[in-house]
Every structure is written in structure tokens, then in C-alpha cells.
């Protein structure tokens, strides 16, 4: 197996993890809406996941860069820029005092991310299979 295959195997796993976090975020938001969780606990819970999620995504991008996977980099660049911007402006944390006001925005963000990660997941899967087949030949 060559490096590319390994890279995409990892990418598939990472995308799966990212999908999982997005789903987790969405479920948490609806929990808040239906009063299963209070905003303080929600923010504490979600804030613990924001940095790992962004970190994992950034690490994946770094691997693509090292593996010269330009298509993948182009696909991921906008989200990477968005995440980096949030970290730089110190705007990434969920604020319990504002959460009900910003909930709509947060939900939208999570849904878009979920869709994006899903697409990526299948694309990585396809690339992984292609790489593995190429390996075999």
C-alpha cells in the first residue's frame, strides 16, 4: 500500500469523526430547544469539542498539503479559513449568555458542516478505493 492510500484511509476516518461531531452539535442544540439541557452545561459541553474539531480538520488539511493533494486542499480551504478566522477573532466559544440569540446561526453552521463533511467523506472514500486499486495493479 502506498502513502496515498494510507492518507485517504485516514481521511475517511477523520471525515467520519467530523460527521459525528456535527451530528452531536445538532443534537445538543435541539436538546437545548426542548429544554433537556441548560445553556450553561450545553456551552461547557460543546466548547470542549470545538477546538478538537477544528484541530482535526486543520491536521487533515496539513496531511493533504504534505501529500500534494491539491484538489482536497482546494475543497477544504474555505472551511479552514472560516475556522482559522473564528479562532483568531476569539469568536469560537459558545456564549451561554447569548446562546438563545445565536442558536439559529449555530444550527445553520452545523448543518452546513454536516453536509460538507458527508460530501467529503464519500469523496475521500472514492479516492481511497481508487488509490487501493491502483496499488493492486
Amino acid at each position, binding site marked *: 500500500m502506498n502513502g496515498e492510500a494510507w492518507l485517504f484511509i485516514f481521511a475517511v476516518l477523520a471525515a467520519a469523526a467530523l460527521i459525528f461531531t456535527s451530528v452531536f452539535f445538532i443534537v445538543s442544540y435541539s436538546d*437545548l*430547544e426542548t*429544554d433537556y439541557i*441548560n*445553556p*450553561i452545561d450545553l456551552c461547557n459541553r460543546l466548547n470542549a469539542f470545538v477546538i478538537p474539531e477544528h484541530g482535526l480538520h486543520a491536521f487533515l488539511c496539513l496531511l493533504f498539503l504534505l501529500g500534494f493533494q491539491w484538489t482536497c486542499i482546494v475543497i477544504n480551504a474555505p472551511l479552514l479559513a472560516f475556522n482559522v478566522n473564528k479562532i483568531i477573532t476569539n469568536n469560537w*466559544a459558545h*456564549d*451561554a*449568555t*447569548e*446562546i*438563545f*440569540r445565536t442558536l439559529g446561526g449555530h444550527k445553520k453552521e452545523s448543518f452546513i458542516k454536516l453536509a460538507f463533511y458527508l460530501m467529503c467523506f464519500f469523496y475521500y472514500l472514492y479516492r481511497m478505493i481508487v488509490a487501493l486499486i491502483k496499488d493492486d495493479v
Partner: protein
Amino acid sequence: MSQQNDLPPGWIAQWDPTHQRHLFIETTSGHQQWEHPLETAGGPLDATVAPAPAPSGHGKRRAYAVGQTHAYDGAGEVAPYPDAAGYGAPVQPGMGGAPAPLFTPGLANDQFAAQQQAAQGQGYYGGSEQYPAQQPAYGQQQPMQYPPVNQLADQFGHMGLGGQKPFALHTANLVATPPNPLELLMPPPEIRLPPGASITDSPAANADPSYMRSTINVVPTTYQLLNKSKLPFSLVLTPHRTLKSAVNSSVDDPPVPVVTDTVIARCRRCRSYINPYVTFIDGGQRWKCCLCSMSNEVPQMFDWDQARNQPGDRWSRPELTSGAVEFVAPTEYMVRPPQPLVYVFLIDVSHAAVQSGMVATATRTILESLDRIPNDDNRTRISLIAFDTALYFFSLTPGSTETSMLVVSDIDDVFLPKPNDQLVLNLTESRAAVETLLGRLQEMFQDTQIIGSALGPALQAGFQLASTTGGKLITLSASLPTLGVGALKNREDPKILGTPKESALLQAGSPFYKTFAIECSRAQVSVDMFLFAATYTDVASLSCLPHYTSGQTFFYPGFNAARSEDAIKFAHEFGIVLGSQIGLEAVIRVRASRGIHMSAFHGNFFVRSTDLLALPAVPPDQNYVIEISLEETLTTPFVVFQTAVLHTTCFGERRIRVITLALPTTSNISELYASVDQIAVATFLANKAVERTQANKLEDARDMVQKYVTDILGAYKSNMTGGGGAAAAGLAIPTNMQMFPLLALGLLKHVALRQSSQIAPDLRAYAHSLLTTLPSQTLIPYLHPSFYSLHDMPPECGTIGDAGVILPPLLPLTSERLVKHGLFVIEDGQTIFLWVGRDSVPQLIMDVFNLPNYEALRGGKYTLPILDNPFSQRVNAIIGKIREMRRGPYYPALFIVKEDGEPPMRLWALSALIQDRGDQTPSYQQWLGQLKDKLNGSSYN
């Protein structure tokens, strides 16, 4: 019984022993009512107290406009003081001028004058608090509240109007009608519920508007209709407003009735409380919820008078007769037993604080207020922490005057030097020690040279003291926090003021103030901030704590206790805050009929779940605004809103205050416009603008205000006037919203939002905190100041009338009214400007200020002497009245403004005259012109 004899034919009076009043019954129809039939309808008094019929209302407005125009073109040149011959005749219609066209004939002039005084004297809606019992006092402005509709229809029939349309909408042309400040004193449009909506027909079935009012007093049945009208829909709440007693009005504010027998009937499904709008079914065995139509059982003890141990009268229960009621809650409503009240004072004792005299004034005020701190059950506890770069705790011994000071200089990891119970002491038991300590505090630190403030660590220490019981941290800080957690940087940069970057200065500078606020809210700790600053103290960050813990922020820029005005203002406000009867551990929930949803919340609290507001403490006279969205089509003839405030009183009783408001529904857009409460709309807009500022930028907030006004005007134009014709020449608006554009302009020109590079961020941030907390009664003058002329006021002004001190007539806010020889008052509830004209006669200066002439007078903060002449006493009485007539602890400072005095002072005072052109802001006429151009040029055509 005279009641019997005065009755019109077909009526009988029956004495009702439970209510101690007569019940009037119409024998033919069986209709019953509490009001005397002659007072409500028909009969000889008809002409004087009948609901203002449409044509007369219209005539009135027109007549007013005439009066105003006269005033504008100077038809009555005012005579200089002290020649009082020509005072203000044209200025205020009805006062001395020609009142005849302004109201229905038949009302004696003096009676009308009394009404006017009542209307003015009671400030905002002082008058409405007494209605409908005192119907004649508002006979003109407030049509009858509870006349049965058939009678109303009858009356309309007599007047040839037909009885079909309950709301008469009148359109005014803004361009041609000068704004009339008196309209701000009018009660909101009447709520006309369908007959029989309230089961007891009690006049108080709907809560007084000062407790809860809606931006529209008729609810549209569909979301589309609301959207089409562009009107905002929200509730404005002040559940714990103070009762202003006889000081201000001739009639005492009725206290909220209390249900003491702990029989609390609630709907099983929606958890709403029983109220005057439910219906009894099954012979009174069950009741049907008016919010969700659920049928519920009536509790067994509901008809039992526990006090006298005998069957009671269900219909006299306060929850069925009153829209505002308080239940004493049983233990199911408690998470823990009611906790004692705990006050922890955090006093800054750094060099700046001691030098400004803050420490001395504060300790003296606390000392003087010890008796007024709520302590009915002798459980109140008190503690004191002083801080500069270190923390100073005081350990007191109950029963003795011994105190020992414990210094903690490790501010990175705050710990308590002694167990909690030795630092927080029962006020009654350790009274002597507390007094000694307060007396000595100033002495202990008077020579301090320490600069710097560890406010964050002090807050953490205070939190540790109060966290087990909950309580109040009263923080007095005189400098920017520089040490430990919560340290703030001086962010003020004159270069970025007036630019988009300015908005960042209005947001919290350190996340500590938000995270700590959440911790406090969880532990039921509320934080009050008293900020004294010679320089920048970052009010924007510090006011976050009161914001999310339901406290209050007070800001005293440039405080110096050596100036007695500063000391008095602070001592007065601080004293009132200490003495106020606060509620503790409160939650607020607003419920409404099906299809209505609470979508956003504004005010000082923490939103704990989608519709639950958490308030560790409930100070009196705090305002909350709740935005409402319609999610389903409403099918009922009326809908009900119910606010429940579950709280612990400061004497340790768990109570639920329930405020109920029922509003009729409509599918008619003109009714919607006719029922707009402009005061509530302005209150909503102020809150919304501040939210927008904090989330986005100042420009966005200004654009939003502008958009609301243009949208409403545009929608009104296209919906109601057909978009063209005669209306195109002017700006059409419903008469009940005539003041709204001016209020919005006042908001745009307010120090909180104005485009300027001169406004310190601290002042802006403080204005934001006021805009979101002031109750409407205090907020409206803050947006639209009151303007009085003193030199030519009518002779009765400043003397005691039926409703307290009589105020001079209100003037429109334009400098055209300023005359060179005049003496004027401009006040916005936070500051009072006494404007002295350049050519004031020496006699006037002598009488008011005891100074030889105008030149000897100096501008700035001032205490008005009380001199031995009637004019001085009248002026003092008016100032005194202005200071106490509104709700809230604020004590406006008095400034003397000389016409040719220092420019900043003059400009500050003139900026209150919001109809004038400002530096970068348009005049009222220009603004209307802009609005008109926008409407005519845009898609609204």
C-alpha cells in the same frame, strides 16, 4: 339610598356585601355592572364622560394643531418675568387659552384644568392607574374601559356612527402636525375585549399597563397580517414596579392583592394560573383554561374562606377579579427553604476611591440606611470586603464593637481567611460592630497611596461568601480593574471614536465578566455595580455582571464628594437601592394562548431555557421586553398573556406574582394600526437597538431604527391610504402613533446611538444599560426630554394641586422656544438643565439664585437655594417634583446652563432639544423630509 333614586328607569341597585359596593342591574336585560349606569352611558352626564366619539376626537387633534401653529408663529408673544400677565396662553391649549374646541362641551373649564393637571402631574400613566374608577379624569383621552358593548353601540348609534367598528382609526399628516408632548402622557389605546370575556367583569381584570403592556392592543389573527403592517409585536413588562403613593397622585396606587390560602389553581397542561378570563363549566366544578382550552378541576378549597373558616365567595377571589395578583406559594414551589437576604459590600479603597470621597460617602450612606435594609425577619446578613491591590476582610464579633481586619494579598488564588459564618454576620445581632466598622473604614484607609484595583478577585471572594445562600454583591469601584482575573485594559482611543471600530468598545473586554456572571446566576447571586470614575473604567465590560445577574449599574463620571451635588445624588440613589424591597431567587415565565410564541428577551436576566428567565434578585422598577411571534392562525376572539414571577420576598416568603393581560384579536389591519401603543413601541425599539449595538455595530442599530420607522410609515401608506392621492403630499400615520417618529428620532439622537466622535464609550455603555432597564415611564422622558418654561409659567404652577405639585405646560423640544430673558427647565429623568437666558432680568436671578445679576451666575452642577420668595419656592417645588415623580431610584442632578456659558455644557443641554438640528443629525422637519423622500422614491409607491 341615593344610589337608588338617581338611577335611570329600568335599573336597580343592589348592595353587594362582599364587595362593599352597589351592583347595578338592568331589569329588562338582566345585565349587571359595577359602574353607575349614568356614569357609563346614557343619561344626563353623557356629554361629559361619554367615550370620545370619533368626530370629536378628530376635531380635538385638529384643534390642537391649530393651537400649536399659533404657538409656533408666535401668536402669543410671551411676557417677560415678573410680569405674569401674558403667560403661556397659546402654549398649552386648555390651560388658559381657548379650551372649548378641545373637548366635549358641558365640562366646566375648571374641571378640565383639573384633568389636565392630573394628567400632567402624574407623569406617565399615573392617571391610568386610577381608571376606570376615576373615569372622568380621563374622560376625553380614554374612552370607557368596560362598558358593555351593547351600550357602547347604542351610544354610537345615537351619534350616527353605527356600532360596527370598535376602533376608529384616524390618520394624521406628520408634516403638517407639530408633535405635541402631551400625547406622551396619554394612556395606551383602550383594550376592547368582547363582552363576557372576563368572568367577573371586574375593572381590574386586565393588569394596569404599567405592569404589562403590549405594542399593539389588538392581536392580528395571522402572521401575514402582522408582517404586512410591519408593526413590532412585543410585551413590555415591569412586574415589580413600585407603588407610587400619595406623594405624586391624588389616588394611591392599589397594591397587588395577595392570595394567602395557598390554593393555587393551575392548568394541568399549560401550567397557567387561573385568571379572570377562564370559564367555569359543569356547574362550576371545572374550569376551562383560557390559554389552551383544557378543562381542569376546581380545587376543593377554592370556595372556602380559610381565614374565617366558612364557605367563601368564589367571585371575590382576587385571582378572578384582578389582572395582577400575588399567590403565596407552598413548599412545592421551593427548591430550598427561603434563604436569608445576604448583602456583601465590596468597597474600593484605593487612592482614587478614598480621594474622591466615595468611601466616606458610601460608608455613611450604608450606616444611615441600615434601618431601611429589608430585615423584617431579623435574618438579613451583611458582610464587607475592602479591596485595592489586596483584599481586606473584616471579622466582627456579634454583640460587641470589636472588629479585626484580615488582609489577603494573594489575589491569584482567592481564599477566605476565616470560615464563612465569621465573615457574614447577622445584621441585627452584630449591628454595633457593623456600625463601628462603617464609621472607621474611611479612617483606616485615608492615607492610602495604593493605586490599582483587584476587582475580579474581590468579586470572587464576595461570591464565596454569598454562594451558599445567594445574595447581593454590591460593588463600589472607582478605578479600572487592573489586577488578577477580570483585569481590563484601557481600550479608550479617541481616534476610533465615531468609526465602526467604536462598537468593539461597547462589548465586554474580558470574558471573565460573562463567565463569572453565569456562575453568579447559578448560585443566585446578583451583582450591583456603582462605578465612580475620573477616567475610563470600562462600563461596557463591568455592566455585563449586573446585566446577566439581574442587578443594576450606576455610573458617576468624575465623582467628587467634595461637591455636595455629587454626594447627594449618589447617597440618594445608593440609599434607595439599599432600602428597596427586592425579590430573590426569581424565575419569570411568560405564557400565552396557543399559537403565540415568545421569541426574544431583553433586559437584565439570564435566559435559562427557551422561555425561562432567571433572576437571582428582582430589583423594583426593572423593565423587560419580550418579543412575540405568531406561529399559528388565531381562532379565538381574544388571546391571553400571562407573566408569572416566582420569587422569594425579602421577608422570606415564596410568592408568585401573576400578571394577566387579555387582548382581542382582529383580522382587520386598520384596527391593528388604531391600537398601537407608541410608548411600548418606543420602549421595544430602544431595547432592540441596544441589542443590535452589542451584537453588531452602532451603524446597524441606527439603520435598524430608521428601517422600522420607514417600514411602518410605508406599510401604513400602502395599506391604508392607497399609496397616493392627498396622502402623498404628507406623511400619513395613525393619530395614536403621532409621537412615534419623534421618539425614534430621539433614540437616534440619544447619547447611546448618536453618530459622534465625542461621546466617551463609558457614557454610551451606561446609556445602553439604562435604555434596557428603565421602565417606560422613565424611559420615554429619557428619549424625549421634558421642556418647561419657568419665567412665564401660569401662577398655579409650582403650587400644590390635587395631584401634588403642578408642573408648567410641556413645550415642544425646539430651541425656538428659548427666549433671551427666559428661565427654562429641560430634564430627561437623569439630568435637569436649568437654562438661563442672557438677558434675564436681575430680579429673576435674584429671586431664584440669590445673586445680583446674570454675570454673577456660574454654569455647572448646582444646588438651588430655597429663598424666601414665592417664585423660588415654586421653582424648587417643580425641581423637587421632577426628581421624585418617576419610578426608579434615580436622582437627577441639576445643572445651570447659561446661554453664553461654556460651549460643551450648552451643547449638552441643547442636544436634549431633539427637534432641532444637531451636529450630524437632522432636525425633526428635515428627518420627516428624508422619510418622505425615501417613501416616495422607493418601492413603497
